[in-house]
């Protein structure tokens, strides 16, 4: 090969890199065999407590993932392909993404979905940017029930830009309409709400949507997909842009990623939407096929005028979720939501009986709810770990003054026995004096 190139050594191929560019050090460990590497990680994995029974959620949930999901998505033909730039040899990925987009649309009752964004938090930021582009306005009104993690992300991305965020605190666990309407004006690009909200409360935002539209503003709703087996959909509320964290649609918790940001909107806003979009068309023989479409929005065509800088998104996670949604199916999805609701209501009734513990009931909830404890929730959670439970998420972590509150989630995976044991353990740790 060197002879074909016309050089004597590999060194010559690097002649553009001058001695002055040489590394000052490159002090890395020696390579290892596969066995040694796998053993190293097996031991490392043991340093994580993955056996705690999770009642912790906060937007990221322990749902059961059918075996067929990982078995199909790990096929090398999906796994080791890249962005479908050449549609003829990428119809597998393209059709799967079209099906994914369709599934997101029917789940949310929206008209068009993109092919995925990084995660729920960055998807919400992209939605805010999209609202700025559509309305050419500069203000966002954000409900206090939106995930505090998402709010932090929004703040980061817009701090160098000329946009304004106003937040209204929740009252009795839900959106404060009165305060919200007072702030809604002709500069408002969008109102952001979340369903169920971070405290677990579920709501119908139709009234907010009407008021926002009357003011010329859009409404962005962040949703928890599993809840949509039961809950009123963003489409039914006439919401303009829907985003969400798709982790619960067949993805492992994986210590924070990769996850799946999804986004859907009204067809009239399709050209303002960020991210890849797969569209149906026909080939030269009239056969149905799929391509990346509306690419004139994208960075590889429009450069600095693109709707977003996104390139690689999370196609494989979208694939995982369409496999999940297919195998769960229409009836399974409805049942799954009902099962989550039933188990959470059961847990509420049991936990509510514990002395000193109050389940907040000002709003209906889905599978996550807020409880008030007689002591600091972070201490309770710490003690519960000793009993084998990840008991919940203490709200004091993100909200000043809410140190005695925590949110608890009960998914379909929690058995009656686990719930009763949890309640018993909670009762006992609350009895411990300091």
């Amino acid at each position: 090969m060197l002879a074909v190139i016309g050089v004597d050594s590999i060194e010559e191929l690097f002649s553009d890199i001058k001695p002055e560019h040489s590394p000052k050090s490159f002090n890395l460990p020696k390579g290892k065999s596969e066995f040694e590497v796998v053993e190293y990680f097996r031991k490392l994995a043991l340093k994580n407590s993955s056996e705690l029974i999770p009642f912790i959620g906060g937007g990221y949930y322990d749902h059961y993932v059918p075996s067929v999901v990982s078995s199909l998505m790990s096929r090398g033909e999906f796994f080791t392909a890249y962005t479908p730039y050449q549609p003829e040899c990428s119809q597998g990925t393209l059709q799967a993404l079209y099906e994914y987009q369709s599934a997101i649309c029917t789940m949310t009752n929206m008209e068009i979905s993109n092919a995925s964004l990084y995660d729920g938090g960055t998807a919400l930021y992209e939605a805010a940017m999209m609202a700025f582009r559509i309305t050419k306005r500069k203000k966002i009104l954000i409900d206090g029930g939106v995930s505090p993690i998402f709010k932090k992300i929004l703040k980061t991305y817009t701090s160098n830009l000329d946009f304004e965020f106003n937040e209204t605190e929740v009252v009795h666990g839900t959106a404060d309409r009165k305060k919200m309407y007072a702030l809604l004006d002709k500069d408002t690009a969008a109102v952001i709400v979340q369903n169920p909200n971070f405290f677990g409360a579920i709501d119908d935002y139709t009234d907010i949507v009407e008021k926002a539209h009357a003011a010329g503003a859009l409404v962005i709703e962040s949703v928890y997909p599993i809840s949509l087996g039961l809950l009123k959909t963003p489409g039914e509320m006439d919401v303009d842009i829907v985003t969400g964290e798709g982790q619960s649609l067949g993805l492992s918790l994986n210590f924070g990623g990769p996850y799946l940001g999804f986004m859907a909107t009204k067809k009239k806003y399709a050209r303002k939407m960020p991210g890849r979009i797969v569209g149906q068309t026909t080939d030269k023989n009239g056969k149905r096929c799929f391509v990346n479409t509306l690419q004139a929005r994208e960075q590889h065509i429009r450069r600095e005028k693109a709707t977003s800088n996104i390139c690689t998104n999370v196609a494989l996670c979208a694939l995982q979720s369409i496999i999940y949604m297919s195998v769960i199916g229409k009836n399974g999805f409805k049942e799954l939501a009902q099962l989550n609701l039933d188990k959470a209501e059961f847990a509420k009734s049991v936990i509510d009986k514990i002395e000193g513990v109050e389940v907040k009931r000002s709003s209906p909830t889905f599978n996550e709810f807020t409880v008030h404890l007689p002591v600091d929730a972070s201490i309770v959670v710490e003690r519960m770990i000793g009993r084998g439970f990840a008991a919940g998420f203490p709200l004091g972590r993100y909200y000043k003054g809410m140190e005695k509150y925590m949110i608890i989630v009960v998914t379909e995976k929690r058995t009656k026995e686990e719930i009763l044991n949890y309640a018993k353990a909670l009762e006992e740790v609350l009895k411990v004096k300091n």
Partner: protein
Amino acid sequence: MELIFEKSVEGRRGFLNPCLDVDVKASIPSHLKRAKDCQFPQVSELDVVRHFTNLSKMNYSVDANFYPLGSCTMKYNPRFTESIACMKGFTDVHPLLPQLKKGELLTQGSLEVLYEMDRLLCEITAMDSFTMQPLAGAHGELTGLMMMAAYHKAKGNNKKYIIVPDSSHGTNPATAAIAGYEIISINSDKTGVMDIEELKSKLSDEVAGLMLTCPNTHGIFNSDIKKISEMIHAVDGLMYYDGANLNAVLGRCRPGDIGFDVMHVNLHKTFATPHGGGGPGSGPVGVNKKLIPFLPISRVIKNSSGKYELDYDYPESIGYVASFYGNFSIILRAYAYILYLGKQGLIETSNNAVLNANYLKERLKERFELAYDRICMHESVFSASRQVENGVHATDIAKFLIDKGCHPPTIYFPLTVKEAIMIEPTETESKKAMDEFVDAMFEADDLSRKNPKEFADLPKTTPVSRPDEVKAARELNANYFAE
């Protein structure tokens, strides 16, 4: 092929939920319920398996095909990293656990991965600290640009512009615009690198920084890089290294040593994590001391007792750029890959990537117009200009290659070369695979002279051929359920 929704049969099930073991049948107020059913398909598990298995067969992939997609580094993804990423001790860890009181003790294994990966990437790139949060390369760019903005703000600098060369990836100018900057584009000179005279003429105190891939998308390492970084630093600009092409220079040159202040690494390129049909990727960002205060929070630190923990106490931090700590399972795979290869393996990676690219370049230049006839790094750019004389374009050659069982190179990028064909074989391909590719390219060239009209019928071996992209955009149909 039918859509999964078209295979739906009323009442068919593929999965049973766990049974309801509590004596509660709860309901929510009707105004909070959905009225219109969600139309997920009603199919059996076998229906699902067969559907997606058959779909997968319609893809080309690294596992099955030569995939010299320039600028994408489509190397082989070793399988042992998958078994590591699938270990329950890693997959089942909730991301909020380390945010609980003493919760970091529950996740020492995962935090150690993040911490050690930071250390390794620092040594590989000569940066001083990394954040693992960015979820893809472009996301890393945005993180880097926001830190640059924070740096200038903290110093009271009045900066308006980001400089990008015309050969840059589209993500560079798109990112700079989203971060609030205006773009100054610099043309390439005759040798294929950024025109340094033009850079000089456009440089001003208002320049916030320069974004550069090095080697660039022409596959050329800029020997003037130190001079360029001195020029940028002279106006208190910052040097951003787009790590997309890092695969070319492992152990040969480290961005931090040659004047770069901030960079991202595409773990899915250089460090062999699967491309997944378009992600998930991972784009950790490294910075030198100037920018450390602005790194996103949380940061993983090792405390005095040797335990890993999350630290949020950085008042100048730009904040959260992702929900948690990055695409953990991707970082895990890349970390395993680095440990496996070790120092020598990484050096050989670049050696062989560059050797392969030059071999292909030399063999192909006999028939195809080479944009820059010189030693290249990990990739080279050709133009189909000779074939265009016979009416055969880069896209036609791509379709020809598909029929030969080869994924086409990147075409029509970089924008600096007309009818561009950008070829990156990577280090994991054999001489034989490359020779077969050259044969196919030569056959395409033969055909372009003998019977150029035949290209219009290609590809012939694929399930579909030459999709109507105009129709796709004009009669937008992106949702099966759309009315």
